């Protein structure tokens, strides 16, 4: 292989060539005149410390970022890659650090969404063909993965494989992989490498990013090292060594890393005994003494963060004990932990460490706010003073302490987080990846600070995936693997190799105390089958289960009503139930689509009222108007109002709940303006229209048939058309949808237009069903009824899931309850309260079951 590449490098043109590419964010250069090239069939690894510019480089190739200067050549010709969609078209696939996928959709759709349609007759989705192709594709990668499994239930590794499969389905020529192994077990890494080698054989060019040198030397053909946005050099694997790469990355010999000063080790301040949490970690026991820094090493996903968060009270353990300074602490909340002198600097600075829009001073004062504020009254002067002190102590670079934390660089943000916790004067400090993503200068400062804190007698537990950091800073090193402690080393006996061995389970060198028992991993080692059976049950059958649940409730209500009053199932009552449902069904179908797309439409009741009043007035002016024309008119009017909603939400970027709250009022006002406040009386409405609610050729009233047709069309639309499937994708993960090149705005706009059109049709049906239209009450509060039907039917208010069957049953339940109350001579006044209880019960049971299934 090496020979081939060498030959190609001398003779051929590379597939890709980046020359002198530069990029900066907010004035800070991230890439400075970097050259990079890529040949077909090679694995070209990018290495460098955090912030070196590796991710930025891959994102430029993937079309997410545009270079400020420099040129990209594809097959020797200059190209522009202005968007991920274009990247996809020229054959570049990007696998993100965090898999960007659609958790509510199944494996096959995640592979093909936005990439390939499987059209059958009538240009409808051919699911069988899609599953067959997915199965074939997965098999060609050597994966045994069910294409029908919902993505949410899969392990991270399996999700990555699905993302790779997606890249392959579009015959990608270039695959960019940003730290694909960071969260994988060694077994899973092996599987990944098998696939990578297979792709190489097919001539795909791969860009690989990893921090694990051993891995890199195994899989790469060439290695390019970046440092602080500059190109340090590119080496053939066969001609380089570990030491050379390390030196290139760090820019100095390794020994120059800051090392912890010697301290006197005091009494144990933190003692953890047999701590366990099901599925996360088990039997964790260790001690941290005053003046000591204990490093906690392991692979990502080994359970280290979970242990730390358990100790800090964020997710209480199921068994075991935590002792702080000789006293047992029953921790239920971070507030309590704080009071006992614990502090936790989280791994994810931006999401968990800081309130980015808040001023620096109010970030720093947050954990000690109660102490700084006598009787609960804020004293911003004191807060600023404290922040100024921290700024001086830790040398935080900022304009002033009123600056929002968002504007600071990573290193300075981390110093703010550290300040915030140091102000609480903790006895025990837990640092989770304290130097991830900050520059080398700030890193050394953080290390110096940690050493000082240890000297002051504080106990420090440091979680880090950075082995040199662990080795340089720790007095003692603990290693976790798959939820258990698998190694413990004194500073003097620790080496990178021994730690990695304990972290990956290749062999288990360990020393006596604090460990637990000798055994294998918590979970069975995951074989080639990457689907966890319990979860896939919970998710793929969830909706069917949900629908059965609600059907059962409907049946129960019917049964109870029939037992008490045998005439409940008389044709008359069935007709009543049937007449109650059509309006709800028609609008609830559309509202469900809006909810699936992660939006909401509160204006449907007003749209219904508007359409009904316009149709009614049309009949007043032109009594001879054809019914079909009137129906068409109502749909068009509704669609137009819905389009206004859609435009507000997509082009004007008004949040859906506000946009439709506004149009709820505005459209209702229009109803009065158009009608002049005058009701459309029964004698204004042609008898033919009213007859639609009474008879039809098939024995059921026409409006029931209308509703059935709308439901059937919705079903086909959502299940068998590309646009219908895109609604689910958009709601499941809008960002991923955009990056896949889906026209998110177009989908959202369409959904609102359909919602309006459905409400318009319902207005026409209203005139038929009730025989009059009152501007003051037609459709008022209807939005709540249809949203209730959708929620009862299991539609997720946060988007991504919902089914026609469920929503139909939800509407049916409302109708059955309504008629049952009447038949049982229970006052109709009970109806509203019953609806309320039904909604609350449905969502409570829902979340209860979902939680039990461990979602």
């Amino acid at each position: 292989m090496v020979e081939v590449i060498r030959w190609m490098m001398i003779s051929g043109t590379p597939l890709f060539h980046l020359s002198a590419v530069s990029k900066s964010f907010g004035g800070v250069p991230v890439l400075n005149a970097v050259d990079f090239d890529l040949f077909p069939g090679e694995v070209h690894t990018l290495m460098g410390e955090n912030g070196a510019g590796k991710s930025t480089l891959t994102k430029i190739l993937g079309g997410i970022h545009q270079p400020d200067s420099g040129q990209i050549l594809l097959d020797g010709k200059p190209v522009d890659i202005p968007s991920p969609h274009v990247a996809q078209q020229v054959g570049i696939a990007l696998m993100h650090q965090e898999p960007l996928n659609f958790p509510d959709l199944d494996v096959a759709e995640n592979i093909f969404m936005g990439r390939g349609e499987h059209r059958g007759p009538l240009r409808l989705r051919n699911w069988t063909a899609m599953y067959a192709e997915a199965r074939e594709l997965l098999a060609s990668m050597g994966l045994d993965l069910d294409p029908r499994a919902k993505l949410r239930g899969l392990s991270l590794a399996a999700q990555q494989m699905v993302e790779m499969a997606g890249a392959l389905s579009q015959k990608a020529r270039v695959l960019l992989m940003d730290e694909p192994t960071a969260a994988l077990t060694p077994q899973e890494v092996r599987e990944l490498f098998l696939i990578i080698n297979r792709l190489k054989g097919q001539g795909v060019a791969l860009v690989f990013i990893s921090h694990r040198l051993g891995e890199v030397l195994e899989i790469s053909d060439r290695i390019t090292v970046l440092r602080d946005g500059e190109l340090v050099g590119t080496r053939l694997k066969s001609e380089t060594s570990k030491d050379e790469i390390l030196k290139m990355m760090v820019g100095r010999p390794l020994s120059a890393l800051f090392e912890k000063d010697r301290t006197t080790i005091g009494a144990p301040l933190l003692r953890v005994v047999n701590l366990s949490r099901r599925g996360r970690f088990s039997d964790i026991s260790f001690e941290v003494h005053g003046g000591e820094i204990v490093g906690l090493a392991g692979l990502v996903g080994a359970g280290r963060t979970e242990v730390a968060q358990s100790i800090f009270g964020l997710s209480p353990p199921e068994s075991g004990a935590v002792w702080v300074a000789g006293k047992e602490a029953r921790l239920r909340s971070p507030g309590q932990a704080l009071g006992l002198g614990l502090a936790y600097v989280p791994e994810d600075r931006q999401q968990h460490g800081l309130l980015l829009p808040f001023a620096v001073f109010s970030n720093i004062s947050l954990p000690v706010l109660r102490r700084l504020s006598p009787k609960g009254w804020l004293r911003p002067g004191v807060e600023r003073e404290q922040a100024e002190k921290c700024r001086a102590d830790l040398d935080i670079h900022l304009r002033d302490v009123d600056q929002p934390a968002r504007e600071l660089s990573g290193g300075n943000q981390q110093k703010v987080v550290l300040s915030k916790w140091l102000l609480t004067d903790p006895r025990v400090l837990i640092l989770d990846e304290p130097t991830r993503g900050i520059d080398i200068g700030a890193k050394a400062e953080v290390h110096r600070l940690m050493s000082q804190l240890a000297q002051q007698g504080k106990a420090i537990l440091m979680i880090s995936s950075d082995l040199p950091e662990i080795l340089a800073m720790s007095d003692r090193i603990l290693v976790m693997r798959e939820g258990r402690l698998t190694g413990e080393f004194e500073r003097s006996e620790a080496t990178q190799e021994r730690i990695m061995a304990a972290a990956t389970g290749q062999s288990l060198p360990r020393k006596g105390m604090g460990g637990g028992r000798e055994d294998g991993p918590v979970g069975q080692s995951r074989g080639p089958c990457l689907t966890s059976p319990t979860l896939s049950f919970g998710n793929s059958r969830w909706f069917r289960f949900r629908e059965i649940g609600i059907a059962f409730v409907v049946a129960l209500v019917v049964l109870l009503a029939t037992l008490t009053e045998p005439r409940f199932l008389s044709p008359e009552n069935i007709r009543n139930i049937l007449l109650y449902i059509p309006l709800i069904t028609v609008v609830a179908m559309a509202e469900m689509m809006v909810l699936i797309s992660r939006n909401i439409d509160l204006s449907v009741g007003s749209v219904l009222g508007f359409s009904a009043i316009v149709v009614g007035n049309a009949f007043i002016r032109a009594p001879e108007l054809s019914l079909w024309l009137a129906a068409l008119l109502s749909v068009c009017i509704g669609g137009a109002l819905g389009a206004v909603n859609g435009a507000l939400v997509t082009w004007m970027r008004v949040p859906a709940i506000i946009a439709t709250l506004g149009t709820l009022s505005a459209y209702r006002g229009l109803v009065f303006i158009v009608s002049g406040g005058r009701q459309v009386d029964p004698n204004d409405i042609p008898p033919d229209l009213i007859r639609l609610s009474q008879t039809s050729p098939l024995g059921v009233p026409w409006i029931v048939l209308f509703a059935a047709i709308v439901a059937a069309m919705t079903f086909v639309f959502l299940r068998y058309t590309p646009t219908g499937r895109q609604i689910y994708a958009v709601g499941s993960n809008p960002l991923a949808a955009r990056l896949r090149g889906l026209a998110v705005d177009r989908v959202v706009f369409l959904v609102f237009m359909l919602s309006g059109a459905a409400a318009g049709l319902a207005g026409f049906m209203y005139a038929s069903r009730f025989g009059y239209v009152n501007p003051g009450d037609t459709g008022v509060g209807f939005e709540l009824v249809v949203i209730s039907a959708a929620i009862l039917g299991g539609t997720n208010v946060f988007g991504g899931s919902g089914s026609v069957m469920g929503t139909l049953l939800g509407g049916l339940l409302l109708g059955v309850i309504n008629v049952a109350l009447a038949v049982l001579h229970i006052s109709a006044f009970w109806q509203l309260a019953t609806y309320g209880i039904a909604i609350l019960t449905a969502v409570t049971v829902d979340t209860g079951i979902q939680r039990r299934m461990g979602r």
Partner: protein
Amino acid sequence: MTTSSTGGARRKVVGLLTRREAVTVLLLVAAVLFSARLSPHFLDLAFLLDSTSLYMEVGLMALAMTFVIISGNIDLSVASGLALVGVGAAVLHSRAGLPMGWVIVLSLALGALLGLFNGLLITRMRLPSLTVTLGTLALYRGIAQILLGDHSLGKFPEWFVGIDYRRIGGLVPVPLLLFSMLAILLSLVLHRTVFGRWTYAIGTNEAAARFSGIPVDRIKVLIYLLSGLMMAAGGLMMTSRLTVARFDMATGRELEVITAVVLGGTDIFGGRGSVFGTVAALFLVGVLRTGMGVANIKAESQLAVLGALLLISVILSNLSGRTQR
């Protein structure tokens, strides 16, 4: 030193003008001028003050809703809760024969309970507030309907009814006074206390707030409790004003409450907003309605103007300053 402090002052002035509330205040001024042109009666002070009584119940609930929305939640059940408290008060007094003093205490307790129920469902069961309060929107009004059916119930003592006809100093109606006092109090709580800071923190980033040791769940429950108390205050006030209670009191008013809060510059996604903005928006809506009423524009037609107003104000602020997010 001098230069930096004037620089700071200039920044403050610029900051004040670009704030979302500034749009609301400008619109309020415009609305007053516009209404004054429609009818000379409009600028009669006594008339203006009296007209506020019509929307003080909405105002009370909007004060609490400001907290709810800033903390990243929503409460759709406020108007239903108001009706239930009103009906509850009528039933306790007219059917159970309790003295009115007790009825007021119990009504406030009932409101607190309704808020608590929302808050506990949301925090303990980890349910989305939109769904929970949609459910209690139906439930609370439903219970009111079960209690009272389609009847009106009243027969309150003389001193309780007609709160809007009592004026302090012969000029300021009691509802306006109560509202103003509560607005000042809650403004202090939101902007000057730890509780207020925590409310913003939770709405900005709930996870980070939790990680910082803030008792997130307790704060949320307290906010819903506040919302419940305001439903109760609004319910008593409206019952006093209408002299009777009905189950369909204040139907749909939750949307007016939310409109006032959002129009006042509070971010529907939480983390930003102020009591001042809500108050300004409330009077903006109130003045517009009164003005249009004086000009003989029908109440229902006014809805079109109000809806458009909400949309325009959000679009304006989108255009001016959404870049921050």
